[in-house]
């Protein structure tokens, strides 16, 4: 690779030293250096711009007190942005949690005295709750009871059912209508698009204010409507919108796309932190899943943002227990080595489910993209919501919200639990507290619960495939954790009962001594949740950290790791991509994954354009092209940039000019500079040769020329080229031979080539 010799000027920058007087007096062209929608940024240019800005501020700071203060403010603006992001993300997450809590219960009934209380809050101060019926209190009534006065019987059940479905349809209709009318970018999870944005892609409006507002409002509606989706992915999107909002207040971040992406990485960490109450897990998730470049400075700032967000959420205290997440568990019962076998089995299940889900979901989304199904988004949402509500109501485990289901599955059975799952047969003569008893035989309630849980598992597995990717905000974490938790709990109860009934088998003999805690089904549920989540998203470290921050039990790291590793291995055996990479591929975003390895033996000459039989490369010459010719070239072709050569005969490379910069410069010159007409000659050189008086005013465009484009020779192996693109974030790379320009390789060509090597469809790469 030969870097072009010469000063490393960047477009729009002042250049000290030699230069025409006319050059210095020329105004820089406005808007040059900004990017088009759906294009990739130039990381190197952004980085050098930032370095220049920093150098300017530092050198000016020695001049006066005012400038010194300005330089201090500039240095601290990063931390201020993180603080603001943390505050706003925490507040929004608290609002979302409280509103979801209330609206989910609204489907079933209403609090008569104080209508804004959810079921639990309504019965909080009541003294009429009994031990057997912990949820009942007279202030909160179901709809059937409110409307007809009776709370038992078939008529009341049918009425409750009908109203449940009606509310679900109403909420989902509102959600999809708001998304459609105000902010179409607010649908979906958001994480695939944010991954692409962080890798350098521009999607204007994706992180805008309206998207933020609509995503927050419709997320509550979507979750409350009982659909099988979660709020973690959308919360990452919300946090990144906050990041974008605050970074536009400071010119350090608003004018530099590269610095802005640092802020967005940190904001993504804050988003996961408030979703799970896991600040460290959030930072690791941002590092592992979402970010593309993650310098160490961003690590500390992300942690700060995540902490501030978690602290803000805690002070809002949405769940009334000073906890951040609904399913925080606190037991510390030990686990045994022999239990690693069922944990590994749960890992295998998680991997298999992850593969199944990814394949089925991508197939369904592809169908939505290409066939008539995609033309009826509102109808689709209504049908799925109606179906979900219809099938979810009869089963008490699916009727309540998924977070509450997970919470119940994670919890161990102590005396506080009155659910069916904890209907163990107690020896009434027991004098010791309930917790101390070794495993007890399951009562009838537990077997009934097992059946219902198995049905719930099948239901959730099927319906989530159709729900994820619809035109409302939808996340994936909670449904996958629910699937895993159900499977885990079933396995846990099975192992527990096996240990009880066959305690004379070899493996159980040392395991379950009377008086010692034996099997904890809640732990199996946690491990199952981690396995399924890992199988779908292919997270590794961040998953384990999130899970143990959720539970507070450092003892459970080994089972969680075992399950996560197993599920990743099993899932990777079937396909290398997680759900987010699969969606990126489906949409054709130009995402050059850092995790992929390119090991083929092709050369740069095989990938470059123009190929044999294609029209020759469109170039501009350093002098001699008229404005008219340049305009014609821009109008006829749709290339993103043009190399500039010394002359058409020698073809020696001078630099590279972007299409957008050229367009804007010519437009501005025609409007502002006198004498520039179609016949004016364009000069990319430093000095303009003296012209006769009758010749029209020349147009000097040296400012917008990039004098150091990256070049490789045609024999450079593609492995190296891909590595360069990845590490430097290039958009295009010129190919030379013996110093003469031969062709160009763009990021799109690289992606298409990689797709071809993997026998995928190269035409699916749509963007530049």
């Amino acid at each position, binding site marked *: 690779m030969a870097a072009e010799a010469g000063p490393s000027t960047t477009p729009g920058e002042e250049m000290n030293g030699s230069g025409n007087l006319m050059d210095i007096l020329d105004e820089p062209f406005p808007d040059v250096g900004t990017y088009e929608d759906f294009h990739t940024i130039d990381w190197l240019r952004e980085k050098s711009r930032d370095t220049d800005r920093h150098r300017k501020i530092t050198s000016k700071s020695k001049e006066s007190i005012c400038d010194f203060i300005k330089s201090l403010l500039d240095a601290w603006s990063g931390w201020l942005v993180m603080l603001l992001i943390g505050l706003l993300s925490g507040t929004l997450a608290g609002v979302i949690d*409280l*509103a979801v809590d209330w609206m989910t219960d609204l489907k079933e009934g209403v609090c008569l005295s104080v209508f804004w209380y959810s079921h639990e809050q309504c019965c909080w101060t009541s003294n009429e709750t009994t031990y057997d019926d912990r949820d009942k209190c007279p202030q909160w009534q179901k709809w059937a009871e409110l409307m007809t006065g009776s709370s038992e019987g078939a008529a009341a059940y049918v009425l409750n059912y009908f109203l449940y479905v009606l509310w679900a349809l109403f909420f989902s209709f509102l959600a999809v209508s708001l998304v459609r009318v105000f902010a179409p970018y607010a649908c979906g999870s958001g994480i695939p698009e944010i991954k692409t944005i962080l890798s350098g892609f521009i999607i204007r409006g994706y992180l805008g204010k*309206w998207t933020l507002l609509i995503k927050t409002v419709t997320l509550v509606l979507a979750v409350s409507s009982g659909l099988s989706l979660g709020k973690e992915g959308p919360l990452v999107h919300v946090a990144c919108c906050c990041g974008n909002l605050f970074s536009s207040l400071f010119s350090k971040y608003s004018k530099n796309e590269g610095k802005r992406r640092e802020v967005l990485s940190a904001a993504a960490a804050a988003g996961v932190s408030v979703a799970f109450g896991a600040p460290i897990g959030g930072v690791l998730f941002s590092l592992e899943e979402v970010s593309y470049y993650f310098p160490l400075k961003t690590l500390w700032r992300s942690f700060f943002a995540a902490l501030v967000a978690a602290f803000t959420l805690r002070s809002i205290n949405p769940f009334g227990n000073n906890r951040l997440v609904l399913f925080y568990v606190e037991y510390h019962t030990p686990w045994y080595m022999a239990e690693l076998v069922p944990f590994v089995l749960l890992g295998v299940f998680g991997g298999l489910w992850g593969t199944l889900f990814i394949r089925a979901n991508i197939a369904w989304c592809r169908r939505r993209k290409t066939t008539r199904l995609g033309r009826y988004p509102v109808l689709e949402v209504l049908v799925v919501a109606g179906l979900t509500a219809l099938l979810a109501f009869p089963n008490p485990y699916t009727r309540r919200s998924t977070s509450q289901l997970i919470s119940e599955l994670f919890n161990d059975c102590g005396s506080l639990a009155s659910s069916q799952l904890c209907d163990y047969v107690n020896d009434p003569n027991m004098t010791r507290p309930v917790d101390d008893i070794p495993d007890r035989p399951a009562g009838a309630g537990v077997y009934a619960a097992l059946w219902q849980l198995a049905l719930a598992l099948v239901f959730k597995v099927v319906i989530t495939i159709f729900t994820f990717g619809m035109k409302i905000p939808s996340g994936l974490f909670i449904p996958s954790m629910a699937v895993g938790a159900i499977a885990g709990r079933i396995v846990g109860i099975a192992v527990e009962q096996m240990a009880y009934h066959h305690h004379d088998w070899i493996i159980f003999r040392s395991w379950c001594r009377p008086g010692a805690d034996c099997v904890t089904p809640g732990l199996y549920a946690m491990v199952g949740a981690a396995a399924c989540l890992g199988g779908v998203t292919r997270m590794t470290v961040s998953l384990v950290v999130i899970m143990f921050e959720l539970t507070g039990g450092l003892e459970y790291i080994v089972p969680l790791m075992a399950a996560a590793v197993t599920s990743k291995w099993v899932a990777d055996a079937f396909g290398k991509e997680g759900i987010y990479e699969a969606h990126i591929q489906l949409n054709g975003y130009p995402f050059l994954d850092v995790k992929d390895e390119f090991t083929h033996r092709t050369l740069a000459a095989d990938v470059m354009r123009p190929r044999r039989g294609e029209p020759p490369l469109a170039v501009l010459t350093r002098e001699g092209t008229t404005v008219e010719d340049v305009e014609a070239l821009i109008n006829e072709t749709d290339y993103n940039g043009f190399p500039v050569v010394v002359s058409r005969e020698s073809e020696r490379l001078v630099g590279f000019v972007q299409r957008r910069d050229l367009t804007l410069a010519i437009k501005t010159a025609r409007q502002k500079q006198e004498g520039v007409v179609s016949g004016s000659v364009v000069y990319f050189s430093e000095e303009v040769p003296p012209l006769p008086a009758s010749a029209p005013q020349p147009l000097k465009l040296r400012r917008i020329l990039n004098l150091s484009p990256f070049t490789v020779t045609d024999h450079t192996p593609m492995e190296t080229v891909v590595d360069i693109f990845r590490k430097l974030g290039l958009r295009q790379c010129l190919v030379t031979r013996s110093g003469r320009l031969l062709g160009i390789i763009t990021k799109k060509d690289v992606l298409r080539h990689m797709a071809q090597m993997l026998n995928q469809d190269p035409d699916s790469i749509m963007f530049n």
Partner: protein
Amino acid sequence: MSHVCINVCIQLYLLVCFLMILSAEISAAKNAEDIRCKCICPPYKDVNGKIYNQNVSLKDCNCLHVVKPMPVEGKDVEAYCLHCECRYEERSSGTIKVTIIVYLSLLGLLLLYMVYLTLLEPTLKRRLFGHSQLIQSDDDDVGDRQPFGNTRDVPSHSNVLNKVEHAQQRWWRQVQEQRKSVFDRHVVLS
């Protein structure tokens, strides 16, 4: 009422809501009803299971302070209390109230604005300007295809209201463009 006023109103409203929520948590007086100690005692011998609630603070949150009247006596008290599990819980009723009301009003505002934009505005425009004006910029192919075509987008009046109205129209056009790429062409966000 033009888009201008509505947009400004919504932004002011959001700012007010955000401040209200923050102030609600900061100044939430610890309502006596907002703390409680909940003790759950399972069935013991011939005593039924019962739940006890009392508004006591954290240090008094144990079986002896909360379970009143004690259903068993003497030596059984200790055994009974070992079965019971007591938990201290806190909530902020002010925050819940403010949040729900703010959210519902925001939702209501958005719904009204949506109804206005989709149903009322086209009919109003049609009545005021006639049918021909509606076919203004439906073919807004904002691309780089003809960069040197007529670029007379800059309004001639530098009237503030005109400029802001222009910005509103631009926002609506952007949303339409987004809608086309997401819902019709399925280019982004399958």
